[in-house]
């Protein structure tokens, strides 16, 4: 067990060291989220009607943070696809390390970059006029939920990265699989404003539950079961994706 923790930390550290050295990835976790916030607030903000919110910013920020954190796992999909391609997985597998550490370390690194993204997004939000309607405990609870949700999605992306043959494919498959889900949710517009078929999808979409939970925690929206529901969804996503990714890793790596 201590071996697993040690090896996971070594792999996580390695993945974090690499990040600042890939300018494109660095842009993806810093400038891109900020750009999204600004575009949505200033381009769509005036056109989207959000009953119950004085300001679209207060509606948007919890949604856009959730969307960004879901995509935080992209680094895992790209990283694993690259490691498979470049033979690094062979190097790891020839070492007496704990097997799951390659995946556990890769996804653990995402927790750090996701925390960084949350800070960047919140800072941007606060600068342009977002305001919390929450206690410190609720704010921190929201951050915790984001990290848990992001971690679960890292495993979804791990599975994607292992299923495809190249980093480029990981990029497009990941995008096509996750991007629509983030939009057919309560993240950017009220669900009630969608056509009824989409409303059905949006209501069962884990993004909607998670975004609603974030609004309950950060801007005082009525909570209902959203907060517990969101943690439950994250656990389910993790419980399904992680074993599949581990099984896929075992098979893919021994080709």
């Amino acid at each position, binding site marked *: 067990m201590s071996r697993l923790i040690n*090896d996971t930390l070594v792999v996580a550290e390695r993945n974090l060291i690499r990040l600042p*050295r890939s300018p494109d990835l660095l842009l993806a976790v810093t400038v891109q989220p900020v750009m999204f916030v600004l575009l949505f607030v200033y381009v769509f903000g005036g056109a989207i009607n959000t009953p119950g919110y004085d300001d679209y910013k207060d509606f948007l920020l919890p949604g856009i943070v959730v969307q960004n954190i879901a995509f935080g796992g992209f680094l895992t999909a790209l990283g694993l696809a690259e490691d498979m391609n470049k*033979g690094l997985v*062979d190097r790891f597998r*020839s*070492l007496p390390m704990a097997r799951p550490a390659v995946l556990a370390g890769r996804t653990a690194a995402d927790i750090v970059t996701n925390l960084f993204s949350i800070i960047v997004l919140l800072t941007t939000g606060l600068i342009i006029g977002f305001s919390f309607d929450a206690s410190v405990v609720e704010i921190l609870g929201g951050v915790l939920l984001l990290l848990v949700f992001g971690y679960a999605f890292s495993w979804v992306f791990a599975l994607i990265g292992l299923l495809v043959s190249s980093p480029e494919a990981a990029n497009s498959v990941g995008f096509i699989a996750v991007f629509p889900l983030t939009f057919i949710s309560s993240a950017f517009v009220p669900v009630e404003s969608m056509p009824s078929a989409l409303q059905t999808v949006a209501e069962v979409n884990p993004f909607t539950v998670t975004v609603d939970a974030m609004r309950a925690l950060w801007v005082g929206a009525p909570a209902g079961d959203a907060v517990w529901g969101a943690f439950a969804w994250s656990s389910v996503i993790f419980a399904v994706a992680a074993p599949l990714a581990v099984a896929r890793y075992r098979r893919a790596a021994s080709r």
Partner: protein
Amino acid sequence: MATPITASDPGHRESRAASSEPAISVSGLVKSFGDVRALDGIDFEVTPGTVLGLLGPNGAGKTTAVRVLTTLLRADAGSVRVAGLDAVRDATELRSQIGLAGQYAAVDENLTGHENLTMVGRLYGMRRREAKARGRELLGEFDLLEAADRPASTYSGGMRRRLDLAAALVAKPAVLFLDEPTTGLDPRSRLDLWATVEALVAVGTTVLLTTQYLDEADRLADRIAVIDRGRVIAAGSPDELKARVGGERLEVTLADGGASEAAIAALAQMSDEPPVAAGATIRLTVRRRGGALMDAVKRLGEAGLEVEDLELRRPTLDDVFLTLTGHAVEEVEKEQDA
């Protein structure tokens, strides 16, 4: 890189296995990929502290054998023991005893050379400081100190291979696997690598290396196993193998292709077997290397034959195959494609 490997003393590790036990023993190994039988019943043993050369052409099954031996692949049938450990049951323990440099360098291009080696050391279970120190030491031995703190993406192909080899040596493994270690190296780096392998063997490391070059196997290996289409078709010491393959090849290109009969007659006494003609080129295996060129020139001159080119060369993998299988490497591949 030519500096001897310091402080490497894996010898003591072998004491954990009974000293009479082979460092590597493989029996009845079979591995198929779909219809392709990459390994078709391989057997061999390697005595501790010696070098086995796996010699074979493209697609012979060399890499597959190395991957099975290093636990990256599981065989369909047969058994593998390395350092006294079973490749399936004791896989993790086995991995702590081996080092692997695969056919293609497996380094993280976004990490520096030193970070790469430190990471590998820590994954072998070393503490951070120990792993860092060992990394520095190896960078020195492999002539990479100047590039130690540069990302590996800035390394040349040869530097990457050296870094990859250094990574294989981080834990001073008792058994080292090198898959075509000199392919893609310039002549100087090749000689350096040979010296490194010899230094490792001198301190007791067991080495299995694959190669397509007979001269490399000849220089480094205590024993050679020639593999072809997943089978060992010949095995023995380099001398035994060369005795079977024969000595130096003499190749004569005549100015006049029509004179080959006369040339064969003139040269016949230099070889135990009749020379072979292909157009204007005559080939024979000479009995003695010393003086062979002079002798040939004299004989051809006396027969009044004009020579365009004359070459004495050591037997190559092609010659080994031609002798052992009766067909050349190229033909094997053509048959496989058919």
